[in-house]
């Protein structure tokens, strides 16, 4: 059966390199010559947020489409099982937005029924215009999630970003949010995002990157590393399209060298093995797919040579 998931949607270079060295993965970054091995053991796929040093799992969860289930009790209970699996398998970041319909409400519904959510790293967005509406929207988000503070508040798709950034700086100083971020997706507005990354005091950036959409490798990812920004990757499966493309093909035999037994782990390991990536946020409405996603946190990551091999293989399909 084709897997159809949907996804919704910083560090200093020193911090990035430090984090990579700590996991023995400098070869992954392509910063050391590749040795005879093609994979590097990664004892724990936790990544440090450069600005604060806090570590979060390299696989999070997006909520675009998947958690927008409206009032249906049956569907909410189904999503509760998905989120319970996420935390049972060491999950951390949940990313949402007011744009995603009832997703924030459903996340709040689930969190209020989950006991082992201490590892939660709450990330949502402000998606409106004007200071007053932005503040109102962020307060509503906190109510929906059942939280007093957010670990990360992002400006969604750069909408009215100058206005919201003033608010977020003030809120961060007052402890109402812990990190500031800014997002885009689908490869849009990279020039504008780069301007913000180079000139503004943001902790996180979020954009699209996957094994076929690699434009971010040219400017966004290197700039994030240079500027010390944490990076969240949305659409790691291109909203399920990559499964449609690849599911009928077998994994290459050498996928076992990096611990991949399914396409989900193959695609996710490619994304999170980029040295500048902090966290990928695949979305799913299914428990079995959540298990596959979270299993990616175990086992070795591909090094630079293996990453090139992975790209070559999928482009040959």
């Amino acid at each position, binding site marked *: 059966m084709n897997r159809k998931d*949907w996804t919704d949607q910083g560090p200093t270079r020193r911090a990035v390199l430090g984090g990579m060295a700590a996991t023995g993965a400098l070869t992954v970054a392509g910063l050391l010559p590749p040795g005879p091995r093609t994979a590097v053991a990664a004892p724990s796929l936790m990544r440090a947020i450069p600005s604060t040093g806090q570590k979060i799992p390299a696989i999070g969860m997006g909520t675009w*489409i998947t958690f*927008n289930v*409206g*009032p249906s009790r049956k569907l909410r209970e189904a999503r509760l099982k998905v989120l319970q699996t996420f935390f049972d398998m060491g999950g951390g970041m949940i990313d949402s937005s007011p744009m995603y*319909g009832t997703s924030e409400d459903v996340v709040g519904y689930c969190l209020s029924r989950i006991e082992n959510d201490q590892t939660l790293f709450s990330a949502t967005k402000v998606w409106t215009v004007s200071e007053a509406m932005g503040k109102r929207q962020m307060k509503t988000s906190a109510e929906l999630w059942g939280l007093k503070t957010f670990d990360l508040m992002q400006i969604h798709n750069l909408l009215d970003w100058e206005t919201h950034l003033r608010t977020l700086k003030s809120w961060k100083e007052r402890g109402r949010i812990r990190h500031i971020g800014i997002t885009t997706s689908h490869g849009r507005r990279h020039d504008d995002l780069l301007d913000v990354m180079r000139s503004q005091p943001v902790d996180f950036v979020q954009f699209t990157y996957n094994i076929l959409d690699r434009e971010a490798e040219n400017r966004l990812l290197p700039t994030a590393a240079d500027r010390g920004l944490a990076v969240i990757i949305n659409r790691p499966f291109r909203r399920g399209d990559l499964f449609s493309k690849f599911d009928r093909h077998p994994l290459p035999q050498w996928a076992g060298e990096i611990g991949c037994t399914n396409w989900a782990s193959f695609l996710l390991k490619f994304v999170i093995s980029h040295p500048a990536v902090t966290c990928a946020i695949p979305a799913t409405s299914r428990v079995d797919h959540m298990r596959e996603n979270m299993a990616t946190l175990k086992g070795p990551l591909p090094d630079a040579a293996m990453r090139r091999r992975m790209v070559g293989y999928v482009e040959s399909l």
Partner: protein
Amino acid sequence: MIPFSPEVFFALFEEYNLAIWPAQFAAYALGLLVLILAVRPSRVSSGVIGAILAALWMWNGVAYHWFFFAPINFSAPVFAGFFILQALLLLWKFVIQRDAMIGFRRDAPGITGLTLMIVALAGYPLLANVADHGGLQSAVFGVAPTPTVIFTLGVLLLARPRAPLVLMIVPLLWSVIGGLAVWLVGIPEDVVLPVAGVLAVNLVLWQRRGQA
């Protein structure tokens, strides 16, 4: 960019149909009344038809789009605005201005119009059943946009001397949006909508050219 899955869309329809029960019967009764008045027109029937259609469009704008659909779709408030606008335009053209009469004639627009009205009332629900979207998951005439729009396009084809073009705009826009649902949400029965839109616009333009 559709922010919900087909599973959620149909679950929402279940909730909606349960919440508004038995408004569906009232909507069907009004639809049948419009059909009868269109076949047997009288001095006041066009105004009554216009008022009924306006009420149904208003319901769709407020109850369906604004209250039920908006929580899962950020575009729904815009849709609500368009549906409310269409309700006001129907009142303006058929009840206040009265510059068009609605009545069946045995010509191409008339036969097509009557057919579209019957399709909206009977054919569309049958197609939905075949597509396994029947019962509580049904988009019911009068209280759900797609069959209401198909029905309205049919009524407009019965307008004489010709259908006011301003009344075609919103139904045609919805034909495009609803037509996308065939592929994006997986509602094969909605293929009737773009077909109805293309038929209606071509017949109205043909009718206007003939009268020019």
